[in-house]
């Protein structure tokens, strides 16, 4: 790849910076590039601003004209937020309670796959055993299985257990009430493993072998190497995977609908989907609700974006 680009861009120019990366960087820091990226950023933000403006307009205004009319005829209300956040029971929001559910679902659903993927990726990258590559290819290939296909089998695995030819191999889980969160964590962890292992494995495999060798010579065990050498080095990759997984779980509707079992365990997304009312007649609430649900992912992304960018780049443009 790099050689190909080099031949194309290598023009007989006196001030050509020595590397392709340097050239690209120079091109991207020019004034036009900045202006273009500014315009793109603005364009991307317009819909979000529209949602924000819409969420503070009165119902009749929202329903009768577009959000940009706000600037010509500003009418401000917090009624939508009030309804969405503190409305009673089934009627209107009560989002506050669902917010907690969302956190209870999301945090373990990020931490479990993070732990499992890091361990599995280490094993696949730095321990030697027969068939290692095939195991890795198998896990990699599992990414193409759409999660929708696994819904019913997984659900019946929880509810009926596993039986083969009439012999019960695993019992049903028989979970009820808040314990149903476990099934949601389980499902999210399962669905996250293939991609997570793949991402972290690639990152770990690129660590210099000398480091691990040196630690081995010093008499470190695998668990010691994993904790003291590998783990500190893969933090950017872990962080970027954590963000991916966090956003995915936070925004997930399907898995929660099926596995959370009932309104008491439902996360924000499930509630959001119902907020518009039976026949979509209460859709003025949606913008406010969307903003409530956007806050957490936005905070997570902004506070971790440094890792995110570093982690992504570290995986892709090395050498």
């Amino acid at each position: 790849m790099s050689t190909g680009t080099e031949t194309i861009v290598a023009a007989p120019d006196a001030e050509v910076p020595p590397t392709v990366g340097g050239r690209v960087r120079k091109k991207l820091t020019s004034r036009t590039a900045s202006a273009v990226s500014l315009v793109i950023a603005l364009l991307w933000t317009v819909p979000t601003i529209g949602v924000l403006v819409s969420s503070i307009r009165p119902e009749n205004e929202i329903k009768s004209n577009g959000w940009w009319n706000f600037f010509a005829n500003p009418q401000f209300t917090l009624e939508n937020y009030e309804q969405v956040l503190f409305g009673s029971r089934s009627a209107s929001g009560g989002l506050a309670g669902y917010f907690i559910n969302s956190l209870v679902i999301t945090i373990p659903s990020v931490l479990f796959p993070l732990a499992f993927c890091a361990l599995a990726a280490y094993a696949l990258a730095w321990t030697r055993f027969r068939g290692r590559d095939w195991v890795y290819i198998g896990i990699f290939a599992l990414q193409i299985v759409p999660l929708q296909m696994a819904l019913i089998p997984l659900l019946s695995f929880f509810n009926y257990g596993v039986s083969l030819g009439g012999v019960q191999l695993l019992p049903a889980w028989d979970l009820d009430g808040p314990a149903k969160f476990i099934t949601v964590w389980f499902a999210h962890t399962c669905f996250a493993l293939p991609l997570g292992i793949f991402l972290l494995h690639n990152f770990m495999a690129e660590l210099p072998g000398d480091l691990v060798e040196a630690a081995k010579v010093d008499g470190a065990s695998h668990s010691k190497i994993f904790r003291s050498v590998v783990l500190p080095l893969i933090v950017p990759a872990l962080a970027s995977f954590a963000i991916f997984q966090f956003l995915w779980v936070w925004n997930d509707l399907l898995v929660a609908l099926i596995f959370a079992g009932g309104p008491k365990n439902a996360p924000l997304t499930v509630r959001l989907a119902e907020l518009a009312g039976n026949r979509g007649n209460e859709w003025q609430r949606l913008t406010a609700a969307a903003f409530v649900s956007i806050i957490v992912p936005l905070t997570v992304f902004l506070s971790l974006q440094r890792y995110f960018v570093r982690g992504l780049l570290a995986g892709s443009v090395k050498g």
Partner: protein
Amino acid sequence: MASHRQRRLLAFSGAVVMALTVAACGGGESDNTSEGKLDTPECAAYKDYTGISGETVTIYSPIRDAEAGLLEDAWKTFADCTGVKIEYEGSGEFEAQLKVRVEGGDAPDLAFIPQPGLLEFFAKGGKLKAAGEKTKAMATQNFSPDWLKYGTVNGSLYGAPLGANVKSFVWYSPSLFKEKGWKVPTTWDEMIKLSDTMVAANLKPWCAGIGSQDATGWPATDWIEDVLLREQGPDVYDQWVTHAIPFNDPRIVSATDRVGSILKNEKYVNGGIGGVKSIATTTFQDGGLPVVQKKCGMHRQASFYANQWPKGTKVAEDGDAFAFYLPAIDPAKGKPVLGGGEFVGAFTDTPAVQAVQTYLASPDFANSRAKLNNWISANKGLDVANVSNPIDKVAVGILQDSGAVFRFDGSDLMPAAVGANSFWKGMTNWINGTDTKATLDFIEGTWPK
């Protein structure tokens, strides 16, 4: 240095998880094991529902949000008196979710199923339990055979009807009609004549919108069903729904063309919105709004459209919006009513589940729910005096009219491949310019063999 910070981050997130787990566990609701208060005088109506105290019955339904809250209010006294605990869950993804849950072994005890076709699917698959003796007796006593037929599979009753809605309504603006001196039409010909009068008065007489995300097209299928029922009568309608006659039968073509003479007539539509094709791009929620803006004369839509009017709209015979019964074409064929409703099917048959199922079919529940507004039922025991909404009063009147011939929304009865797919798509293309014959041929071709 960096690792120090990370360790602190890890410790922090660990602490958050712990705190949340504690909060989640500690937040369990106080267990009120009410033993039931069946002896008290206010519970006299429920004295037959004994022995179900402390049991939990789960209900899954497509009814959600405010209307779900009203349902819970309606059975609250029953639940308090008998001590049964009803856990209700409403979802917009009901149809797809129910199948997944039933397949995965996570079926609810009761489900409010709005499509008789889906009810039949579960009944034939052996998933639904036939209604118990008491439920059956209660349902037979309170609902007409027209309704019970749709909850019956292979001769046994699986679902008792619950709520109902009437689709054969035309919304109009009473104040505009009064202003112009127009009268509510009582025959089809009068209605067409009135349309022409409106055209002469420089007003587009009809407006419509069939957009509804992945269900775009359904309001147009209601039009066809309503007109077919009026033009050919209930027998042809039943044959059409069960595919005893092909979808592109000449009689269906004639009914579709009659709808086309309104919906595809540039002179008639689309009042306040645009041309014929704007019908396909307008959502059904917005389709009738020009009526109150007096930019459109009439809008055919079900009674539930009452909830769509902007806040402050007076829905009454002397108000800003009201509806009249879509008149019959041939009065000799009776008074056809197109409608829909839910059926309460049971996936388990414990005494508690059957008791709740029986209660939901009783006039007591119908009246209790109707008093809370915005709801009607075909239950014969429903007292019109308990219905406060003027439009709902008219709807109950139509449902309880002995001359009424009730037929369920046909697209809910047809196989899903047609009723929830090609029929919708076909009608959307039809609005967009495909001719009637090509449309009906296409739908006929998709009917499962």
